[in-house]
């Protein structure tokens, strides 16, 4: 009998009886309450918008610059991965070589995830022109494959890139120091595999200029086979440089390759080839993280403050609501919904501005002006493309959503201790 | 000829309320002599509060001349008006008279501090005034710790402690019960009689009117009777 009565009662009666109201009404009331103090709502929402804007822009640029740094650094010389003799990385001497070079190269070119592969042999040698000489690294490369794994061939300023089997590709600074020009002959002399003298004659056919004087004056590239025969290396190579579609895949691909390699060989991803790059990124990420945490914590505190003031001012009103039968929980819910609305307004503004800016800049990239020194030293690319991803765009809004909820909830919980009679007596 | 403490000639004040002009004061001529206790009476919207406000320099008339203790109010800038109020006029409002964060004594000293009177003299005069009004024991209380009547009496103490030429009281009894109103009015009357304080009040409380030496009735912004 009683059950039937309740079932037939109009739906609105049930919530009314328990002293709470439907979510739709809550929403409407909260939204209107929010705009009772426009100035405060705008200020607080602006604070939210401001910090979301800063976090999104900083994160996008930060992560975008990492990708750029990795691409630039790995693209210069090291590649995404390298297969080397297991001791070569720590002790790069001629004897630490992979013997069956061309066979391994063919296998690696077919390996899953590998987009390009190029072999190298390296030896330190004395480079002489006439009676002048200079110590430097002679790098034997495959003129066809090498351009697919490194940018050095694109830094050409004069001549051609290794057109013949006795061509040399030399840094402009080295050429200046030795008084070299295109067409000049250079004599290279070093220690061969079995302790004998390695010697070879090359013709300068191309000059490069990377902007890094150290590199330009100490490295030269020549065809692979010439170095192999001069140093008695036969078919051996020192490195096989590998490229993946994306630098971020390198670690996974390297793990897949490891079991397929000959015993004396091992594969290193760029993480291990350029440990300072990974650590620089980590250090930068940590300092960025500190700034984000501070920014978001401070905005959360300012939202908390805003709601502390709101709750304080409306003590009388809340007393009245409780007096007419609203449950304190309902009031808490109303305040929390107000906080959500506040978050939504601030986020909408901050996100609208920062998202459109980042998506726009992400497409065209931003040149780094006036930082060429730093760019060279810290392996920075010339343009940064801000990274546009769920992570860079979404983190700040989501963290602030949680922050705003807590910031609204804490002052709101004080309402539960409110005694209606005292609240009504409170001076407005 | 006696010097009028307040003299108004042809004073008009019009408000624009939703584009409809509201004539709060129409061409009012009015004067208060030294030592008078004048009550402005009339219903809400009659213009009595507006008249009190323009005399106190809180509001400016659209037309007409007002002098207070010989000074032409129209000729004064905002800061000079503030100085006029500070030095020549004492105010008692209907509520919210006192600075909540200051004690009774500090409230009474407040205007003297603005005037730059030194601390020792301030203390003596504030305590002396509170004492003469029978509120010595309230000196250290803050407004929140006093009743409405006590607060109004402290406000009066503050208003008269600097010996202003004119005491303006806007609905001083609005928030008080009959008994307290009586005590307050006795106090005002005593100040008027014993110290010769010139008092101008605006009120619609008949009890206040009864204590005044002269009643001025306003209706629709005009003086209808004296």
């Amino acid at each position, binding site marked *: 009998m009683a059950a039937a009565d309740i079932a037939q009662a109009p739906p609105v009666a049930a919530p009314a009886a328990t002293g709470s109201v439907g979510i739709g009404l809550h929403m409407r009331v909260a939204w209107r309450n929010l705009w009772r103090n426009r100035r*405060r709502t705008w*200020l*607080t929402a602006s*604070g939210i918008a*401001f*910090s979301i804007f*800063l976090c999104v822009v900083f994160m996008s640029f930060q992560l975008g610059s990492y990708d750029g740094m990795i691409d630039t650094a790995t693209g210069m010389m090291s590649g995404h991965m390298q297969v080397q003799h297991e001791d070569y990385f720590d002790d790069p*001497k001629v004897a630490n070589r992979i013997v069956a070079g061309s066979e391994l190269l063919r296998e690696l070119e077919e390996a899953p995830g590998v987009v390009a592969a190029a072999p190298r042999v390296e030896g*330190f*040698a*004395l480079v002489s022109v006439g*009676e*002048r000489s*200079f*110590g430097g690294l002679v790098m034997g490369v495959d003129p066809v494959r090498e351009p697919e794994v490194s940018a050095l061939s694109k830094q050409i300023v004069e001549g051609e890139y290794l057109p013949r089997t006795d061509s040399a590709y030399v840094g402009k600074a080295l050429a*200046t*120091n030795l008084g070299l020009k295109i067409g000049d002959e250079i004599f290279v002399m070093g*220690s061969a595999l079995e*302790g004998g003298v390695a010697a070879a004659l090359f013709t300068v056919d191309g000059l490069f200029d990377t902007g890094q*004087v150290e590199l330009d004056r*100490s490295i030269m590239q020549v065809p692979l086979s010439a170095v192999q025969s001069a140093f008695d290396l036969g078919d051996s190579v020192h490195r096989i440089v590998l490229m993946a579609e994306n630098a971020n895949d390198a670690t996974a691909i390297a793990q897949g390759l490891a079991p397929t390699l000959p015993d004396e060989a091992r594969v290193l991803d760029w993480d291990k080839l350029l*440990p*300072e790059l990974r*650590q*620089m990124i*980590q*250090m930068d990420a940590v300092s960025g993280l*500190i*700034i984000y945490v*501070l*920014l978001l914590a401070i*905005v959360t*505190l*300012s939202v908390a*403050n805003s709601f*502390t*003031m709101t709750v*304080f001012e409306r003590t009388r009103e809340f007393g009245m609501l409780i007096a007419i039968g609203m449950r304190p929980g309902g009031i808490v819910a109303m305040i929390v919904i107000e906080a959500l609305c506040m978050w939504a307004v601030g986020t909408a503004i901050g996100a609208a501005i920062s998202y459109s800016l980042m998506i726009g800049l992400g497409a065209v990239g931003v040149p780094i002006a006036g930082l060429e*020194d*730093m760019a060279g030293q810290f392996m920075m690319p010339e343009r940064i493309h801000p990274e546009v991803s769920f992570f860079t765009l979404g983190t700040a809004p989501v963290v602030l959503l949680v922050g705003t909820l807590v910031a609204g909830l804490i002052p709101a919980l004080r309402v539960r201790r409110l005694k209606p009679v005292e609240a009504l007596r409170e001076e407005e | 000829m006696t010097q009028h403490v307040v003299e108004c000639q042809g004073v008009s004040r019009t408000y624009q309320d939703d584009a409809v002009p509201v004539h709060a004061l129409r061409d009012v001529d009015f004067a208060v002599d030294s030592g008078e206790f004048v009550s402005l009476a009339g219903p809400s919207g009659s213009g009595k*509060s507006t008249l009190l*406000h323009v005399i106190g320099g*809180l509001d400016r008339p659209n037309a007409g001349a007002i002098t207070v203790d010989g000074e032409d109010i129209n000729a004064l800038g905002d*800061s000079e008006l*503030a*100085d006029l*109020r*500070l*030095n020549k006029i004492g*105010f008692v409002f209907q509520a*919210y*008279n006192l*600075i*909540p*964060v*200051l004690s009774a004594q500090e409230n009474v000293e407040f*205007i003297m*501090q*603005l005037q*730059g009177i030194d601390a020792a003299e301030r203390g003596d005069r504030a305590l002396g005034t509170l004492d003469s009004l029978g509120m010595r024991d309230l000196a250290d209380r803050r407004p929140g710790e006093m009743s409405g009547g006590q607060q109004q009496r402290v406000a009066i103490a503050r208003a008269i402690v600097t010996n202003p030429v004119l005491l303006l009281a806007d609905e001083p009894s609005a928030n008080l019960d009959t008994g307290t109103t009586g005590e307050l009015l006795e106090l005002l009357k005593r100040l008027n009689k014993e110290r010769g304080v010139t008092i101008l009040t605006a009120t619609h409380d008949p009890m206040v009117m009864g204590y005044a030496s002269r009643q001025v009735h306003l209706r629709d912004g005009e003086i209808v009777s004296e």
Partner: protein
Amino acid sequence: MPLKLLLQLSWRNLWRHRRRNGIMVLAIALAVTGVMLMNTLMRGMAAEMREAAIDNLTGHIKVIHPGYMADPGIGRGFEPEQGWEQALADVPVAGWAQRVRVPAVIMSERETRGVQLVGVDPAQETISFLGSLSVDGEALSGAEDRRIIVGATLAEQLETSVGRRLVIMTQGADGLNREAGYRIAGTYDADSNALEKVFVFTGAQTVARLLESPAVTEVSLRLESDDDIPLALAELGAVFEDLDVKAWQDLEPQVASMVLVADFGLYIMYFVIMGALVFGLVNALVTAVMERVRELGMLRALGMRPRSVVAQVVVESTLVMTAGVVAGLALAVVCYLPFSGGIDLSAFSETMQMMGVRNIFTPRLEVADMVIVFVLSLVLGVLASLYPARRAVKVTPLDAMRR
């Protein structure tokens, strides 16, 4: 309005809303602490990079031949006149050293490497890392010492050890190769492997004999302070007319730009984080003004001048700011003290070495930066109060009456 009254009113008003103002003070303190701690890290890093750069044979000032940077070699050497240092009588100089530094090829029985051969007078090298080096074996005894000191890492690569001989080959002024064998007196351990691989030291006279030239390639000076650099540059410029006299900032532009970044970083971080804070501060101040409309109107009616009303809001804002900043700075100092002796950063060692920073990293909390943050905060406190103060001035006595 007397200042004392102003402060008294503002102070008591702040205590009326403890919770609200407490949150503001907490937020400001948090922001200031965060900014200061980041700053101590950046300052520490910049300072170490700078020290390392100066230590690594650069000094505060170096005199070189204008062509040496592009073509380092004895061909770009010079002979300083005897007694040139007299010119610096009025500059506090910590020390100076004359060196011959040329690129060379070093060969053991098994390996060949490219290095920088540096001829030094060990007595002068108190100004560089060489002076404080830990050497396994024996150190160089003087400018005439005919033995060499090599880095431990290089010795390993060359598969050689103390007491054995190495052949060094380099170019003379005529462009012809010179070659000689030298015994290893000792191996050294530097903070960075890169240094160990690059520098091979021997007596200055020994290099002169090998190169058949009395010339040096650089004169390096260490001063008592960075502030003396301009004066020293000017005086040295007059002595070494045809040579380049360069400060470390020009010789190590990357390090100099890092130091600059640390300088600017303080301001950038400060304004980013305080920018977010200002919204909350303005909010609290405006609320405080709006709550007090009746009180402010009454004060105006009593004869308080508009500028006193402005002053009151400004003072309240500044007080909150000051409380927050003082708390934040104090917290920063408390957090800093346990680490003031240094933090072990061996986990980041490669980067640190690359940037020229040692493994034990010493953060630096500089009083000057604390003063900057304090002053900036006071300015910001005043700026944040302008809008609320304008609102407060707009309150007329009539607004108060009408309520």
